[in-house]
């Protein structure tokens, strides 16, 4: 079931995107995107709302088909035409909208599409595995036999993250995984990202929380209006990052900061 992928060499190039574009009718969501992900590396993908981060993740998850460009996986050009194909190759995803089946319980959702013994499902073994995975994430889930509909937003997010770990993937993509999580759970997810990285997997992390991004990311890739807008490291100054994200050194964030500074000055 959870076939132990012989982890790739640390630093080996897993994923390479060249000139990837995605058109939704008249809307160009992605244009000429380049992205490399190496084994044992956390790549953060940041950008404003609507920058195309989720679209890129969906292209890599096989949910959307790119309209142009090539995707190489371990040096071979691949076609990710269905989510099943991406999962099969070892690309797991936590979607922004989680994509859980509300009418099924936690165990059923975790193992959906990958049940243990398909002709006579082994519920006991699945439940044990479910609890172990959830405990790794410090999950606070009262019962794994309740339908997902009865869980809180953060609990659902934890379930979605646990599900992505189930198949021991080469690359795991997390689209705003900590948006709804509590303090302890966020810390656990960050710990988990580091653990997954140390095991030699690649991680793509999308987050609007720059603190989290800086805490774990090896590289920070900025998307702006569907295009690459620079690659940074955790050492990059906050201001530089913000201006890359918003596209100008003079922006609403810097203006706000300046105003605050002025107010402080007036008070004194």
């Amino acid at each position, binding site marked *: 079931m959870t076939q132990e992928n012989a982890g790739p060499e640390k630093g080996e190039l897993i994923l390479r995107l060249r000139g990837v574009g995605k058109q939704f009718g008249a809307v160009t969501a992605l244009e000429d995107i380049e992205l490399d992900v190496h084994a044992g590396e956390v790549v953060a993908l940041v950008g404003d709302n609507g920058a195309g981060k989720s679209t890129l993740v969906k292209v890599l998850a096989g949910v959307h088909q790119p309209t142009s460009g090539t995707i190489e996986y371990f040096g071979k050009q691949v076609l990710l035409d269905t989510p099943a194909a991406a999962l099969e190759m070892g690309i797991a995803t936590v979607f922004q909208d989680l994509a*859980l089946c509300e009418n099924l319980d936690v165990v059923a959702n975790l193992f*959906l599409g990958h049940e243990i013994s398909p002709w006579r499902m082994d519920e006991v073994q699945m439940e044990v595995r479910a609890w172990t995975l959830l405990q790794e994430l410090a999950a606070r889930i009262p019962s794994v036999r309740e339908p997902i509909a009865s869980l809180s937003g953060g609990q659902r997010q934890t379930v979605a993250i646990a599900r992505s770990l189930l198949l021991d993937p080469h690359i795991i993509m997390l689209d705003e995984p900590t948006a709804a999580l509590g303090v302890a759970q966020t810390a656990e997810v960050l710990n988990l990202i580091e653990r997954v990285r140390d095991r030699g997997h690649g991680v793509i992390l999308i987050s609007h929380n720059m603190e989290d991004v800086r805490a774990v990311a090896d590289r920070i890739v900025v998307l702006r209006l569907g295009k690459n807008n620079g690659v940074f490291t955790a050492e990059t100054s906050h201001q530089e990052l913000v201006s890359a994200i918003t596209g100008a050194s003079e922006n609403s964030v810097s203006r706000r900061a300046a105003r605050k500074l002025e107010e402080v000055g007036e008070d004194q």
Partner: protein
Amino acid sequence: MTQNTQKSTPPPQLDRADARVRHDAGLAGALRGFVDQIRSGDLGMLPVVLGLLLISIVFSTLNPIFLAPNNLVNLLFDAAAVGLIALGVVCVLLLGEIDLSIGSMSGLASAMTGVLWVNSGVPLPITIIAVMLTGALVGLLFGFLRNKFEMPSFVATLAGLLALLGLQLYILGPTGSINMPFSSPLVRFGQILIMPAWVSYFVAIIPGALIVYGSMRTNQRRSAANLSSGGMSVAVAKAAILTVALIFAVFYLEQGRGVPWMFGVFVLFVVFLNYALTRTKWGRSMFAVGGNAEAARRSGINVQRIRLSAFVVCSTFAALGGVFAAARLASASQQAGTGDVNLNAIAAAVIGGTSLFGGRGSAWSALLGVLVIMAISNGLTLLNLSSSLRYMITGAVLAIAVIVDSLARRSRASHGRA
């Protein structure tokens, strides 16, 4: 000191770490859980059981013959064909789809049985296989239309209703009706074959035995895996009630002719589909696609193939139901599968507790629902009511079932149970 107490407490069971959850144990606990479940709108089989009780009381006061053993035996004979069709309907409803052509499919199937077996002399088993393959083919076509053209199944199968009816009339030809020999095994199966008493009694104790054995095994495996196990009291109580009820039912029916083989075969199919839906990956995928098709797709499930399989299963069961209906009536006619067959089958599935909105239901709903539908139809016939009134009442019952379904869904949504 504290060291000591810590050592003596056993490690908490995997699923009992959270103190906020009330863990219902034993019989009282099971009862409390059941009440909670009903309150939150997860009605399960409750409406249908209450409905059956109500129907029995009303009709037996209006006409005592209703509860006579032989009338109930007839009812079971009648239930098998529609029940099989309803079983297929459960599969498409689980996906939130619908098949309106099942009546025509069963009519075509009975016409094919007449033409192939009676008129052309094809051996019966080969005829039945051919009929079922035709059903599967029709299902493939519906699934294909749904998958490739995103044609709503409502429209595709409505077109199928007419086309299959046309085909039925065409192959029956100008005579329009084919009688089947009364001494043939098919007609005997549909009209007189009864299980021997000892077989019926034996079958009646199997479910209870299976429940006890199954829960013993699960409990063992769960405690071996450090999971909580519910104890045996609930299972034993359930099994005891079920066994007593079934034995009584068999005893009562044995006062008349006994349990029809035809009904037994139908129940066998119910058990089989129930296993497929609850214990296999296919069944899990059916529920997932019905609940959230996009999520199912992103989990790597081939949604199109699941849809195809549902339509194929539905049409195949409809075809087999048509063969059963032909056996019951000892004829294939232009009327077969028309009239209320379609709605009876769909109503049976919904009344039994399968949701029209997809993602909820069970194979048992076909069995219980068809008993309700057939009891109503049988009771009204006994009262010598015309079919016009029967149609109106069946229509009203379907409407009530759908209302219950919708209300339960709303209640589940407000209780966070999907």
